[in-house]
């Protein structure tokens, strides 16, 4: 049941989150460097809001999601979550017991509906697992709750005793969603939840996510690489490049008038279901920078079409150039960039 909401306070606030993976070499496994998967990421998510996190593979979007949950321990930074029981807490500093409490309210759904469900567990076991682990329900009560969850995601409760192999990709994603929502959480990280699905099934799952958000008062962090999907579901969108957020803005503003050259290039690259020729297309040179050995200054400068001398020397700050629109670019105020949509 949606509890009274605090619309003007963020539910989640991430401050300068860093996750570096050490690179070890040789017999003694000495640390010879770090992969800067997430390199100082800050953002907030308001209650009931959907924040989209986009970027190409290796940009750190999935690692950011996992570090927020503390599924992997972040290297540094703060993750403030307003837990309904514990109140505002920094997830990175919690002990094991508190973490279990927070995990009731911070849940995740994964990309691969085949790998994320154990083939040896029935739906009752899968969806009931978080309830059992958190001591929320047992026996008949557990079964009733699982039945209710299955119904909620559009599956028949009679399927409870079946195994995942009997279900299609879309149905498996519904099972994963039922498992995530079973403890009645407040916040769900959706990590590429529809990218393994066919378009017609994708549409069903996106609609279901929106319905459930309304019904249960959910807040989403929606991690994906498909910009059309992110645009559809998100209220605001953050764009990541090599471990850093380079631009963040309300969805319509970002797609109409991006201010970072990387965002512009990304939007230009989307294949559009419209055979009419487009005016121009930006093809990025080269490849995504190596997060173990990033370039100097702005990480995007070797591929940027608008590059200036300063870009190779100094890293630009993430600045709020208009209300709610953050850009990490030296030239953000000067450039006139093309959005994905022209009105």
């Amino acid at each position, binding site marked *: 049941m949606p509890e009274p909401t605090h619309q003007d306070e963020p539910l989640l606030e991430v401050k300068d989150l860093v996750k570096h993976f050490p690179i070890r070499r040789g017999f003694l496994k000495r640390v010879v460097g770090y992969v800067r998967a997430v390199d100082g990421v800050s953002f907030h998510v308001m209650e009931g809001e959907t924040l989209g996190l986009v970027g190409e593979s290796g940009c750190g979007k999935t690692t950011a999601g996992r570090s927020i949950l503390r599924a992997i321990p972040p290297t540094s930074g703060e993750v403030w979550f307003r837990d309904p029981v514990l109140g505002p807490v920094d997830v990175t500093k919690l002990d094991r017991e508190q973490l279990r409490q927070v995990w009731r309210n911070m849940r995740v759904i994964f990309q691969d509906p085949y790998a994320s469900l154990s083939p040896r567990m029935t739906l009752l076991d899968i969806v009931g697992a978080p309830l059992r682990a958190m001591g929320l329900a047992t026996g008949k009560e557990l079964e009733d709750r699982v039945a209710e969850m299955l119904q909620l995601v559009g599956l028949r409760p009679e399927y409870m005793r079946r195994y995942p192999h009997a279900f299609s990709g879309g149905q498996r994603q519904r099972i994963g969603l039922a498992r995530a929502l079973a403890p009645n959480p407040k916040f769900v990280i959706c990590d590429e939840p529809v990218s393994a699905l066919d378009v017609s099934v994708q*549409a069903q799952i996106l609609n279901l996510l929106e319905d459930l958000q309304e019904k249960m008062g959910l807040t989403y962090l929606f991690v994906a690489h498909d910009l059309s999907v992110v645009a*559809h579901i998100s209220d605001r969108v953050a764009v990541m490049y090599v471990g850093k957020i380079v631009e963040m803005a309300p969805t319509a503003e970002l797609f109409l008038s991006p201010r970072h050259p990387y965002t512009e290039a990304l939007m230009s690259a989307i*294949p559009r279901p419209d055979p009419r020729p487009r005016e121009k297309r930006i093809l*990025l040179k080269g490849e995504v920078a190596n997060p173990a050995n990033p370039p100097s200054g702005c990480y995007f400068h070797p591929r940027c079409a608008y590059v200036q001398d300063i870009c190779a020397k100094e890293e630009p700050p993430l600045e709020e150039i208009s209300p709610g629109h953050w850009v990490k670019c030296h030239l953000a105020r000067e450039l006139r960039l093309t959005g994905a949509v022209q*009105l």
Partner: protein
Amino acid sequence: MLGNSALVEIKNLRTYFHLPEGTVRAVDGVDLTIRRGRTLGIVGESGCGKSVTALSLLRLVPSPGRIEGGEILFYRTVEEASASSALTDVIDLARLEPNGREMRSIRGNQISMVFQEPMSALIPVRTVGSQITEVITLHQKVSEAEAREIAADMLARVRLPKPRQALDDYPFQLSGGMRQRAVIAMALCCRPKLLIADEPTTALDVTTEAQILDLMRELQKEFGMAIMYITHNLGVIAEMAETVAVMYLGKVVELTDVKTLFMSPLHPYTRALLRSIPQLTDAVARGTKKPRLQTIEGMVPDPYSVLPGCTFHPRCPERLPDLCDRVEPGVSEVAPGHSVKCHLYSSP
């Protein structure tokens, strides 16, 4: 003339998989024509038979799959050294021995393929160069050293930076986009007449995908080959294809040019598919209320079932009672080059 003549004609192709659970009619009566130098797009959701159609063409259908019937006519040009003219002879690929000499001389040579996963298309323990030269020496009478030259030239044409160095690289040393370039180079090194691309960019990022699509279009112009482009992504279809076949459950339900497909699609399945993609313009132009995506009700039926009538009727919002669930619709040509397999458009 030559630019418009048929290269491959697929007629009533049926490829079935006989499994203990039943028979899967993966491809069930497909008619398609691939023209020289043109791009035919095949679009459909998983399990619609688009990949099996391509594999049938190359005679690579894995067991227990079998071509049960139909023809795959390949209009092969035989270059004659004496006369400057080229002769065409017709060969039915469906009748060839899958691993016979004739099929092997066509596969990888006149017809080649690029697969979805660039990592599994390359052998991880052999260098990129050795894998490309193998294809060249297999089909052309050239020495090892000449083959290496051709391979280096090909890698340069697919815009691989430092092509000579890449010859001695192992696949893991290349990024996903680079690997897919190497695979494309391998597919093109014998100058095929037809390139079959089965979801070649699905595993890649959008910016890399844009680079690869651009490259394929350029190479098509340069080499004059035909492309059969298979994808589930309607956006990619809009960019790549000239003619598009929409497949559903092993059958082509609509065939038309790419503009008509997006501007005035006719088959209820095509229309539903197009409506179910999130549109950027809707997302941006929306006011306070989010528009819901339109979905296709139900899901693709299980592959063992044999549905009477039109295979789409259980999910079709426009089904005609007492007709669609009993009688299989024929193919009606509603305009030149635009055919639909649906009762709504069949002439009485």
